[in-house]
């Protein structure tokens, strides 16, 4: 157990994030409305080991993008703590924080909005290097930018171009080059291929895997696409309405999903192999995150829900088949385990 602990690069403990989305004070007084708090993330805990890829998967409103931003320091948690390589992010200040920031980077979903239109690509990629004091402007820097561009499959001459001269997939490569320029150990990837065509997605996923192998990178990969997640992750975390419902090795999650929501997500994947599988159509829709259901957030849509599910929020517990699940039905062994074909 102790050996494993030192291997942990990211340790997220009971993190929550609330947003105040109430109407302005005057409106509230006049319309007699209460304050409205959006619990985007409501108590999420997980760890990521060095060199592995953990994916967070879920539908809209589940809070996975918010978790990504919390991990990167773009938001401060309302509760809980985030430890990067043993250091509590909330306590780090000034120089320590800056050094910490050099060790992780983020790749975003939208290849068009994630690069500054007015900057040349070379300047975009060099920014982390200059900000963290890892280099000075000059020929050495240009050489390094050229190297980075080559590593992501572009040409060093592309440093002089502007983002709008590139396609979506190429821009995403530039984003990856920027993320790598400060020699980080950890990359947070927020749906990096969702806006790309299928063939381009394949190129980018292959590239990311190659880079991970070459540089020993650790990834937190956010996606709503289960098939993509199955290709790139070692472990998968399933989120629903701000909570983690199941975390396990990729193989276990896809061959034996335990949580009813995970099972439903699996069956919702379009059947490309045309096995003619019968699905239990998923009932209902994701509820309004402003008024989440009591107890287990999934109970209104769950075929196995009972009274306890409506009252009590399930905790994440270890499961003998591997990983953790937050479900009363699984804990009470009420739900049949389905073994899916590998």
């Amino acid at each position, binding site marked *: 157990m102790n050996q494993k602990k030192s291997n942990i690069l990211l340790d997220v403990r009971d993190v929550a994030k609330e947003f105040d989305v109430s109407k302005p004070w005057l409106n509230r007084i006049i319309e007699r409305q209460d304050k409205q708090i959006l619990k985007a993330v409501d108590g999420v805990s997980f760890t990521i080991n060095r060199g592995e890829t953990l994916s967070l998967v879920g539908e809209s409103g589940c809070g996975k993008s918010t978790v990504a931003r919390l991990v990167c320091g773009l938001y401060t948690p309302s509760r809980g703590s985030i430890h990067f390589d043993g250091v509590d992010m909330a306590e780090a200040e000034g120089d320590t924080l800056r050094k910490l920031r050099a060790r992780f980077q983020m790749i975003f979903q939208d290849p068009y909005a994630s690069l500054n239109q007015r900057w040349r690509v070379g300047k975009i990629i060099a920014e982390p290097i200059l900000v963290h004091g890892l280099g000075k402007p000059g020929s050495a820097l240009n050489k390094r930018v050229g190297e980075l561009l080559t590593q992501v499959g572009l040409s060093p001459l592309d440093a002089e171009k502007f983002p709008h001269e590139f396609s979506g997939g190429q821009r995403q490569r530039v984003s990856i080059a920027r993320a790598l320029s400060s020699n980080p150990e950890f990359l947070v990837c927020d749906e990096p291929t969702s806006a790309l065509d299928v063939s381009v997605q*394949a190129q980018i996923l292959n590239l990311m895997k190659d880079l991970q192998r070459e540089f020993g990178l650790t990834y937190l990969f956010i996606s709503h696409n289960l098939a993509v997640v199955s*290709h790139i992750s070692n472990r998968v975390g399933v989120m629903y309405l701000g909570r983690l419902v199941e975390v396990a090795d990729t193989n276990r999650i*896809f061959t034996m999903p335990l949580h009813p929501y995970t099972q439903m997500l699996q069956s919702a994947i*379009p059947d*490309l192999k045309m096995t003619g599988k019968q699905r239990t159509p998923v009932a209902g829709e994701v509820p309004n995150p402003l008024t989440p259901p009591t107890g287990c957030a999934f109970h209104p849509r769950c075929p196995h829900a009972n009274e306890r599910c409506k009252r009590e929020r399930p905790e994440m517990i270890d499961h003998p088949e591997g990983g953790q699940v937050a479900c009363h039905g699984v804990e009470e062994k009420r739900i049949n385990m389905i073994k899916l074909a590998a």
Partner: protein
Amino acid sequence: MNPPLLQVKNLRIEFPTRRGILVAVDDISFDIAAGEVLGVVGESGAGKSLTGAAVIGLLEPPGRIAGGEIIFNGKRIDNLPFEEIRKIRGREIGAIFQDPLTSLNPLYTIGRQITETIETHLALTHAQARTRAIELLNEVGIPAADKRIDHYPHQFSGGMRQRVVISLALAANPKLIIADEPTTALDVSIQAQIITLLKKLGREHGTAVMLVTHDMGVIAETADRVAVMYAGRIAEIGPVADVIHHPQHPYTIGLMGAIPNVGDNNERLAQIDGSMPRLTAIPAGCAFNPRCTRRADVPNQRCTTERPGLLPAGMTQAACWLHAGQSGKRSEAENEKKSDENRKMVSV
């Protein structure tokens, strides 16, 4: 043999710009039979949305149809004056677009929007139209339809809105529906619901559907036949099972290999090097040839000089010189062997 409901012949769509004329769709032909679901799949820039827009007469200027014919129910519709097209639109051909938020007018109740469509195209009284609207909403799975008919679009969630849009498309009982990326903006579980709904309605009403999407998974579940588009041309067209399991065109083979599948066990995804050419720089000959690994197998460098038409290739048709000289259909076994060979030769 009944004539097909929709016949598109040699359709060409151009965009005049100050840098010259861009050809967005270059001489494509396909048919849709009554009650059939044809999937039109391709990546961005392939021209599939434009094709859909051209069929329903909603091509935005400066884009224009520069050649070919669109024949619906035996009558030519691409050259009709605006008034005639307006009558066909809605009554004979319906449309579902990608974004349910902007497809509905936020200022009117959905009941008003549906009854308006019904009254425009069918000779029903207002009361009859309202009854029909409630029926439609029930059919598409809106709970408590008789109450929700008076709600505004913003009171529905994304998936519900898309159902309302589908009911609007079906309101006047059209024979053909053009669905342009109907599930792309929706969550995976809602997507599954909508796909199931579309299939059910198609069967029950006998409506033909032209389903335009980039998602092969949706096509696999919904379509009977599929056309794969690349750079404004059709690369391959045929029955869905055949195109997916035994693709004959190197682009289709590459595309199928690039799609991740659960349970593939972390292999490297097959990738097609390079990217789709921009409209200003479409290669001579076959548009896919610079990225194709099988180019050397065709004698006389034909791929770089001559553009292939759709040639019979096993159970499908592929626009590829590899299949020149094939005639008639091969047997299933031969077909499988051929596509396995092709698959091995495409880069991994």
